[in-house]
C-alpha cells in the first residue's frame, strides 16, 4: 500500500492537501487509542510531505532525484555568498547601498581584520567584543556563520588558547564533537579540540608588547613553531632541528620555542646545550613550570642535586602538593645522603598520591640500613645477637640436610657401611654448607 493510499488521496505536490487528509485520517487513528494505526499514518504523512516537495519541484527542474533535491536544500545556507560575489563583479560599486552586504559576510570580514591585527588578535577581549555582535546571536545565520568561521580558521589558526576558549564558549565546539564531525574534516575538528583543552598549548604572551616582532614575519614564525612541535612529537629530529633553527633566528625571545630546543638537545644527547636552553627559558619566564621541571630532572641525572633542589623549590612554591616534584626532591636528598629530608618529602608525596611508583621505590630505599649510622651494641646484646644468628643458621642448615642425616644414621645403625659412604655423607654436608654460605651472601646484598 503506497503512502497515498494510506492517506486516501492522489499523489500531489500541495502540502495543504496532504495536511488536510492527514488530519481527517488522524481522527480515525488517534494516537491515544490506536498507536499502530497512528504510526503507519504518521510515517505515510511524513513521507508524503517529502515526496510533495519533490513533485512540486519536478516541473522546474527536469531531472532531479530526491537526494539531489535535499542537497540543493543544504546548499541554501551558502547561497548568499554566491549572490554577494556576483555583486562584487558589478563595475559600479557606489550604486550598491552598504546595508545590502550580508551580515554574515560583514562579520567574516571583521574576523579577518581582527586576525590580521596581530596585537589585538591575541587578546581574548577583542574576540569577546566581536563575538557579541548581533549577527552571532542571530539563530537564523548561526549555521552559515559557523561554517564561514571554521573555513576561515582552517587557514588561519594561530591563536592563543584563551581565544580558543572564547570561541568555544560561543560556539560550544567541545560540547558537541559529533555535530562537528558531521560537517568538518576530522583532522581539523581534532585540532580545534586540542587547542581548547590546551594539551599542546603554545603560548603567545611573549609577543605581547615585544618590539622585536615588528620586524619578523610573525605568520611564518608561528608556522615554523607549530611544525617543529609536531616534528618533535613524531620523533623526526632532523626536520625539527631545521625548523627550530630557522625559527630561533627569526625570534629568540620565545620560551616555548626554547623549551622545544631543549627537548631536541636532550633527545640528541647534548646535555650542555639543553641546560643552556633551559636556563634561557627561565630567564624569559622566571616562573615557567616546564623550564624548572626539566632542568631539575636534568640536574638530578647529572648528580647536581643542590641546583636541582633549587629549581624544585620554585615549583613547590607554586604547587606544594605535587607528587612528581616532591618525589624528585626526595631523590635529590637521597643523592645527598640526607635521609630525614628524603623520608619527609616521600611521605608528603605519598599523602598526595599513594600510587606514585617512584615515591614508593625511593622511600623504601631510604629505609635501607646502609644509609644509617649504627650505634654500638652492648656486649651482652652482641652475644645474644650472635647466638641468635647461630641458631638461625643451624636451623637453615638442618632444613637443608635433614634427609641425608636421617638416612645415614639409619643405615649406620642397621648396616655396616663401607668407608666410601662416610666420605659421601661428609661431602653432602659440606656441599650444603657451601650452598648456605652462598645464599647468605645473596641475601645480604
Amino acid at each position, binding site marked *: 500500500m503506497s503512502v497515498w493510499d494510506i492517506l486516501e488521496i492522489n499523489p500531489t505536490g500541495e502540502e495543504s492537501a496532504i495536511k488536510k487528509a492527514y*488530519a481527517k485520517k488522524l481522527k480515525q487513528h488517534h*494516537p*491515544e487509542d490506536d498507536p499502530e494505526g497512528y504510526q503507519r499514518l504518521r510515517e505515510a504523512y511524513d513521507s508524503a510531505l517529502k515526496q510533495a516537495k519533490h513533485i512540486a519541484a519536478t516541473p522546474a527542474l527536469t531531472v532531479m532525484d530526491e537526494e539531489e533535491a535535499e542537497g540543493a536544500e543544504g546548499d541554501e545556507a551558502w547561497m548568499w555568498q554566491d549572490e554577494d560575489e556576483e555583486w562584487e563583479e558589478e563595475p559600479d560599486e557606489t550604486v550598491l547601498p552598504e546595508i545590502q552586504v550580508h551580515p554574515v559576510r560583514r562579520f567574516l570580514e571583521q574576523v579577518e581584520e581582527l586576525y590580521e591585527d596581530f596585537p589585538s588578535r591575541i587578546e581574548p577581549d577583542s574576540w569577546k567584543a566581536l563575538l557579541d555582535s548581533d549577527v552571532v546571536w542571530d539563530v537564523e545565520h548561526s549555521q552559515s556563520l559557523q561554517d564561514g568561521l571554521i573555513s576561515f580558521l582552517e587557514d588561519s589558526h594561530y591563536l592563543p588558547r584563551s581565544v580558543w576558549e572564547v570561541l568555544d564558549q560561543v560556539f560550544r565546539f567541545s560540547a558537541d564533537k559529533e555535530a562537528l564531525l558531521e560537517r568538518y574534516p576530522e583532522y581539523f575538528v581534532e585540532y580545534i579540540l586540542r587547542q581548547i583543552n590546551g594539551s599542546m598549548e603554545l603560548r603567545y604572551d611573549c609577543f605581547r608588547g615585544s618590539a622585536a616582532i615588528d620586524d619578523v614575519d610573525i605568520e611564518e614564525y608561528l608556522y615554523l613553531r607549530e611544525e617543529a612541535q609536531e616534528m618533535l612529537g613524531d620523533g623526526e629530529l632532523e626536520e625539527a632541528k631545521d625548523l627550530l633553527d630557522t625559527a630561533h633566528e627569526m625570534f629568540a625571545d620565545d620560551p616555548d620555542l626554547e623549551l622545544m630546543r631543549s627537548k631536541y638537545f636532550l633527545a640528541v644527547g647534548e646535555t650542555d646545550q639543553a641546560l643552556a636552553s633551559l636556563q634561557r627559558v627561565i630567564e624569559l619566564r622566571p616562573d615557567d613550570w616546564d623550564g624548572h621541571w626539566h632542568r631539575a630532572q636534568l640536574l638530578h641525572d647529572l648528580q647536581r642535586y643542590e641546583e636541582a633542589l633549587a629549581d624544585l623549590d620554585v615549583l613547590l612554591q607554586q604547587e606544594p602538593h605535587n607528587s612528581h616534584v616532591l618525589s624528585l626532591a626526595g631523590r635529590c636528598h637521597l643523592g645527598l645522603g640526607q635521609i630525614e629530608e628524603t623520608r619527609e618529602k616521600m611521605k608528603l608525596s605519598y599523602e598526595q598520591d599513594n600510587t606514585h611508583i617512584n615515591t614508593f621505590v625511593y622511600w623504601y630505599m631510604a629505609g635501607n640500613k646502609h644509609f644509617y649510622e649504627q650505634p654500638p651494641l652492648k656486649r651482652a646484646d652482641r652475644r645474644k645477637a650472635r647466638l641468635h644468628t647461630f641458631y638461625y643458621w643451624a636451623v637453615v642448615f638442618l632444613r637443608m640436610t635433614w634427609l641425608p642425616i636421617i638416612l645415614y644414621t639409619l643405615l649406620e645403625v642397621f648396616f655396616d657401611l663401607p668407608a666410601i659412604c662416610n666420605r659421601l655423607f661428609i661431602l653432602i654436608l659440606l656441599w650444603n654448607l657451601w650452598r648456605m654460605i652462598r645464599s647468605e651472601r645473596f641475601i645480604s646484598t
Partner: protein
Amino acid sequence: MSMIGIDLGTTNSLVAYWDKDQAVIIPNVLGEHLTPSIVSVDENGSILVGRIAQERLITHPHLTASTFKRFMGTEKKYTLGAHTFTPAELSSFILKALKEDAEAHLGVEVTEAVISVPAYFNDSQRKATKRAAEIAGLKVERLISEPTAAAIAYGLHQEKPETKFLVFDLGGGTFDVSVLELFEGIMDVKSIAGDNFLGGEDFTEILIAHFLEKHKLELASLDTKTQSALYKQAETCKLALGQETSATMSLTIRDQAYELRLDRTEYEKLAHPLLLRLRKPIERALRDASLSPSDLDAVILIGGATRLPLIKHVIGRMFGRMPYTNINPDETVALGAAIQTALKQRNQALEEIILTDVCPYTLGTSVVQELGNGQLSSGHFFPIIERNTPIPVSRVERLYTVHDNQKRLNVAVYQGESRLVEHNIKLGELQIKIPPAPAGEQSIDVRYTYDINGILEVEVVSVSTGEKKRVVIEQNEGSMTKEQIEARLQELQDIKIHPRDRTENRLLIAKGERLYEEALGERREAIAIAIQQFEKALLTQNDKEIKKATEIFKERLEQMERWMDFS
C-alpha cells in the same frame, strides 16, 4: 470524579482544572496560585509544604528541602530530621498538598491527574514523577511535556488556522525548546531539544559565586543558615535587577556585615556564559524540525526565569524579533495540563485538538562492529528509535550473533546521541538464550516501543525458538522488591502532614521565626514577644480570640518586614 492538571515545577507548582468551557487555576489554602515546591519537617516530625516551608528555608535549612526536581530519578537522598526521602517522595508531598487544595475547591474527591514534565526529562525522570503521583494517591492519566502544555494553552486562542511556533521554556532548573506546528486541529510537536542542567537557579547561583568571590569567602565555610540567607539575598537581587538598574546584596556573617552592589551591565557580564548555553538547543530544535527562525510565526516564553529582562533581550537578539508575551509564563503550563484533561475526556465544549508528540532522545542498543581487518570492536551505539520521532512508535531491528556457538545475547538499552555507548545513558539490560550455531546464523528481533507518556518498553524475540522477553525499563526501582516498595509506601502514609486548615497560622509563625532570625537587638525581642502572644492565643482554642490575635499578629509582622527593608 474529577481530573486535575498539575504543573510540578522546580521552584513553584500549580494545579488547575477544566471548568465547563475554560481552564482555571485552583488557589491554595492561602489563596495563592503558586505553591513553592519546598518541603520541610517540623519539630514534631510532621510535614510542611509550600510557603511555610519556604519561610523555614531560612530558619531551619537542615530540615527543609528545595529544588529537588533537579534530582528526580536519581539515587540522591534528602535527610530531614528523622526522615530520609528520595526526590520522588518529596515531590509526592507537594502533589498531595495540591490534590487537597483541588478537593477543597471542587468539593469532590480527585484521583486522576495530568502532570507536566520537562520535555527533556528522560525515562527514569518520568518514572520518578509517575511514582511520586502514585505515592500521593493520584493516578497519572498522562505525563505531558511542559512546552506542549503551554502550546495547547496558547493554541487555544489562536485565530490563524495554521501556525508554526517555538516554545522557549526556562524553568527553575531545566531548559527546554520545542518547535510546534498547529494545523487542522492538530498540535504537532516537530522537535524538542534542551539542557537538563540549565535553569533560573543558575542565574541565582552566579550571584552567590560572585558575592563569595568578591569577599574572598568559601561557601563550605558558611553554616547552612547563612547559606540559605545568602541564597535568599541573591534571589532578591536577581529579581531586583529585573526592575532596576542596580541592586544590593548584604549578609551578616559572624557579626561582620558584607555588602555587594551590582549594576545590570555587570550582571549581564556574569550571566554571559549561561546565556550562550541557550543557543545550542535552539539551533538543534530548529535543525531537527528543518525550519529556520524566519519560518516561525511566534516565540512563546514560559517558565519564571523568562521574566528576567536579560533573557528577553537575548531572545530578541537570537530571533530578530520580540517574543510573544501575552501569556503568563508561570501559569500557562498548568492551564495547558488542565486543557489536556478536558481533551482526554473529549470534553464537548472543546473543539477537538489532537496532540502528537515526539521522543526527545535517540534510543538504541550496544552492538559489536566489524572493523575492516576482520577484528571486532564493541560498545558501538545502534539507534533503534531516532530522536524526534513522533510517538507512540514501535520499531524492530534484527541483530545477529558474532561468535560461533554463542549461547546468549545481551541487549543493553541506551539513550543518547553519541556513537559510542559509553557516552550515553544506560537504561537497562536483558538477556536471552539462543541455540548454539555458527556466528551470524542465529538472530533476535529487538523491538522498542515508546508510548505516548514517553515510557519505553523493550521486547526481544529469538527468531529460531520464538522465546520472548520483555521489560518495561525500570532502572531505579530495580533494586527494590515489591514488598519493599509496599513497606516504604506504608511508612510514608504514616508520616503526619500538617493539617491544611491550620496552614495560615502556621505560616505566620514560620514567618515570625524568619524575621526573628533576620533581625537584631530590640527588634528581635519585640518579634519574640509577638510570637509568644500569638501562640498563647492559639492555645485558648477560642475561634473568636484566635481570629483577633491573627489579625494583630499579621499586621505586626508586616510592619516589621517593612522596617527591615529600610534598615
